[in-house]
């Protein structure tokens, strides 16, 4: 702790009591920063619970709190859209976690012919912006190679393309490399098979990495916009985030309903972030510096 106290910051902020002027300035600036970055999000909360929010009078606290917006939003199928979003998020996240754990196990714990090419293939997908392949992807989803099945208008059409993500495979691989080989060798001597080593030794040791990959995976899936838009054949296939735009363009729908929808779309990502923020912020730094 004494080391932390002595550590000086670039601007030379001090934590001793004598420097109250600089502490006051810093406090003010911090309050300003928090307001600037959270204020716009807070207006969603107040507007969603305000019985008749007017875009000219958005505020940080509702004037007249009620749940009317959510009731009206329910009539506009908001729960259906939320359901679509949650099924996609759950399904795609589960798929993504299992796919990355399997792939990482092979990449980190095995040596095989062609390993370098596979690694390169994974890295290439990370350099390929999703937006760039959106148009041909929509054709592929409409007519899968070999099977010739169309996934258009199905939730599976959004889930499957999100199932393999280079970033989560990469993070998982880096983490699995750190597990000492001796543990595995001991298990082999004891006669454990491949699947047992994977399921009972490597997998449990990966729990911390699974947390990081899950937060990033969820954020990436929840952020999806173009993919659900091109997979959908009609508005009932929309995810909540995509539906917000069509709700807004509807003249019958007031800003209160859009705000209620926006709040419902915001809360899951906030919950996931707030519950795992430490590993999230740490993950950003390691992920970006290694990538």
């Amino acid at each position, binding site marked *: 702790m004494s080391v932390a106290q002595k550590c000086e910051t670039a601007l030379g902020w001090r934590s001793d009591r004598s420097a109250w002027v600089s502490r006051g300035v810093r406090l003010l600036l911090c309050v300003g920063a*928090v307001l600037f970055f959270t204020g716009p999000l807070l207006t969603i909360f107040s507007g969603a619970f305000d019985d008749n929010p007017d875009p*000219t009078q958005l505020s940080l606290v509702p004037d007249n709190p009620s749940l009317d917006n959510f009731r009206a939003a329910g009539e506009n199928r908001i729960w259906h859209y939320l359901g679509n979003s949650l099924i996609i998020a759950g399904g795609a996240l589960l798929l993504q976690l299992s796919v990355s754990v399997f*792939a990482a196990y092979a990449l980190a714990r095995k040596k095989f012919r062609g390993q370098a090419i596979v690694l*390169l293939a994974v890295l290439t997908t990370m350099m390929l*912006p999703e937006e760039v392949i959106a*148009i041909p992807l929509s*054709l592929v989803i409409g007519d899968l190679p070999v099977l010739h099945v169309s996934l258009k208008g199905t939730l599976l059409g959004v889930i499957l393309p999100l199932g393999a993500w280079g970033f989560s495979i990469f993070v998982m691989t880096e983490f699995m490399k750190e597990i000492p080989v001796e543990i595995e060798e001991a298990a082999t001597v004891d006669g454990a098979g491949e699947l047992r080593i994977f399921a009972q030794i490597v997998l449990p040791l990966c729990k911390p990495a699974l947390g990081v990959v899950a937060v990033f995976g969820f954020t990436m899936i929840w952020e999806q916009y*173009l993919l659900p838009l091109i997979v959908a054949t009609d508005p009932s296939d929309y995810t909540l985030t995509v539906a917000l735009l069509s709700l807004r363009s509807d003249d019958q729908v007031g800003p209160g309903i859009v705000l209620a929808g926006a709040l419902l779309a915001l809360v899951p990502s906030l919950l996931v972030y707030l519950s795992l923020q430490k590993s999230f912020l740490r993950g950003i730094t390691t992920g*970006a510096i290694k990538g």
Partner: protein
Amino acid sequence: MTAVRTAGEDVGAAANGGGAVGSHPVGRRRKRRLTSVTPWLFLAPALLLFVVFKYVPMAEGVRLSLFQVRPFLGDLFVGLDNYVRILGDDRFQAAIGRTFLLAAGQTLGSMLIGFALALLLEGHARSLWFVRSAVFLPVVAATAVIGEIWRLLYYPAPEGFVNTVLSFVGLGPVAFLDSPDSALWSVMAVGIWKGAPYDMVLILAGLAGIDRQQYEAAEIDGASTWHRIRYVTLPALRPVVTILLTLAAIRGLRTFTEVYVLTGGGPAGSTDVWMTRVFSVAFERNELGIASAGSVLLFLITFALTVTVQLYRRRKA
């Protein structure tokens, strides 16, 4: 091709080393075959999904960019004609210019504000952790949601939220998204607002890596705060800044959601960017060949950018 061969040799050598535990020739052979199949079984789901949803579309995109796509009539090979047409298109040229402006503005703006935030919030105190987590919230919120919120905040009347705030300091009212003069800048501001906290986290990590003795030495030499930042902090942050510039530039070039949600490219096409242009050419005008050519060009630029920066970084290191 050389990379392939070296990889094969590496792996071959490693397999020999690993397999030479002195067992029977037969047992050894069986074991080796087993170990060479298992990795592929574990990799199969990932590779299958990548091939179907990344590589096939990528190849298909390149192919389409060389054809005039005609449903029911069969595609017509047109060579590089699509590229010529899209590069010669006025609206697309304007969109390219705007994309670069938007990417540059968002990248630099986020970096500057992120740097200022990082300097402000550097430290170990618990309260700073709280402030950092709160400031980071815009990064986690989905872009589409943020777009909807800012549309309402940007309400183009004196009573609108941002205009009310501006009036406190004697500015405004501004039409924001409703005027071709201010729409692109308004979109840029939202991008900076969402991007700055992300940059802050990476810069904070960079600041944490700076040797404190350098600060002490600077103090003994009588350096001012400005000098300390100029000669100790900024040089130490150079690697982080390079990463941030690449990441943000790529993110900026492929911008789609925020523009689509905030303005849909309007008013009067004043915020149309590369990807929104490609999107409308593909799905509104149904010219898949031309749209694919636009996508392939964007990919080539982002790819070239990444590779250049990586090579530059490697040479420095």
